[in-house]
């Protein structure tokens, strides 16, 4: 090391920029995860329709499923677009699993989970949940309330169950102990289905709340939210 490098002071605007809420790595992983989940659910619905796991009479409208045009694959391949949906499903699963694994490792190592998702106490959860039901729960950007923390742990758990039950359906011989753990091949499909339901329910709430506080979306794209754009205000009961 030779002489100390003296940086010329960069002239900055008078107003300091807001702090980064989401580092670039987390934003990339968030949107990759969103893409992977969208593909998994869209193709999963088509796969479900091929032979519903539930015994009730329920199917997804083909237009809302992923796997190409039905009449096209009927004409071309004499099959109802299942091949395409499976190709999407088993392609996107790698994106989902690798991205999630990196996210979990980074989350634990960097202290993101400990800092932002903990502590989570039952009393706080009940308090914030009641406040949320009365539309009195404040949203502070960059700070999670107990309900949010609970939902993030919940969706991580749902993802884990859905991925593992999916693995047990994909490989019921190589991983037959896992399949047994999920109640056998047939029941593992049901578990996989309801895991998807839990994730889908999370997405509905997650997206609805993000649209109610749009600065969160700006923060998840740009990393920080411009101050004036944060609509949420602390509400006093």
């Amino acid at each position, binding site marked *: 090391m030779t002489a100390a490098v003296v940086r010329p002071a960069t002239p900055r605007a008078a107003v300091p920029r807001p702090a980064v809420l989401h580092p670039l790595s987390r934003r990339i992983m968030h949107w990759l995860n969103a893409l992977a989940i969208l593909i998994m659910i869209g193709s999963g619905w088509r796969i479900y329709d091929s032979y519903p796991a539930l015994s009730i009479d329920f199917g997804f409208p083909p237009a809302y*499923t992923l796997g190409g045009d039905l009449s096209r*694959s009927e004409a071309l391949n004499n099959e109802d677009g299942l091949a395409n949906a499976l190709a999407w499903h088993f392609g996107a699963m790698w994106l989902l699993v690798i991205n999630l694994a990196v996210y979990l490792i980074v989350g634990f190592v960097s202290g993101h989970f400990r800092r932002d998702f903990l502590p989570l106490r039952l009393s706080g959860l009940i308090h914030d949940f009641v406040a949320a039901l009365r539309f009195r729960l404040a949203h502070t950007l960059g700070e999670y309330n107990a309900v949010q923390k609970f939902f993030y742990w919940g969706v991580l758990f749902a993802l884990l169950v859905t991925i593992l039950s999916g693995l047990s359906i994909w*490989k019921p011989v190589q991983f037959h102990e896992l399949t047994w753990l999920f109640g056998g*091949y047939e029941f593992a499909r049901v578990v996989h289905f309801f895991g998807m339901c839990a994730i889908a329910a999370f997405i509905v709430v997650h*997206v609805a709340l993000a649209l109610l506080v749009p600065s969160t979306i700006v923060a998840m794209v740009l990393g920080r939210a411009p101050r004036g754009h944060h609509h949420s205000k602390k509400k006093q009961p």
Partner: protein
Amino acid sequence: MTRATLERKPLVRGIERRLFLRQTLSLGALVMLGGCDISDQDSVQAVLRAMSRWNDRAQALLFRESRLAPTFAESEAVRDFRYNAYFPVEAVPKLSADDYRLELSGLISDKRPWTLERLHALPQESQVTRHVCVEGWSMIGKWRGTPLGTFLQRVGADLTAKYVGYRCADGYYGSIDMPTALHPQTIMAFGFFDETIPAKYGFPFKIRIPTKLGFKNPKWVTTLYVTNRPTGGFWEDRGYNWFSGL
């Protein structure tokens, strides 16, 4: 409308607008994926095919020859097994037991065709295993037959080759990897329960492979061959994954 007038509106109206926006966005995203569809584009198809080949390799790595498929009690097996093919049951090939010959080709030293009588003289064993269809249904059945590995050894097949291919009386075709062909539970199933396998389940035999999806269990087999060249298959050429291991 100015911002001030918007903010004076009741909160519920604001939420409704946002919910509507959310629904429009998510429906739009799904319709884009499902309806007007990116799935059918050639570039997307190419990526999906490349991922499928990647999955072939990943599944081959996961496969263990010593890993046995779970077996069940005979009481759990279904006699009225689901008939499944790409044509109705009335159209199944009805092969004559006397005229039938199993043709052999490729990397096999003794390529003389086999009569059904000779095939039936081979050692046989039974299995009660779960048949898993790519469509999502599954059913437990009982099959009886000769391990394919025993047969391949008997005819002097090159067991270091990559693939064992099959052609069937109904025009069905395909191949499996050699490790799966040599798996102890991969059998030439001449029997269903304690009877000769009926026409609708694949007479004179189906290759029963409990470590693979149902469509990799060919019925009415007329030719077996050993090769190092990838062969594709009836459903594989229509977009299904080739390895399709369980």
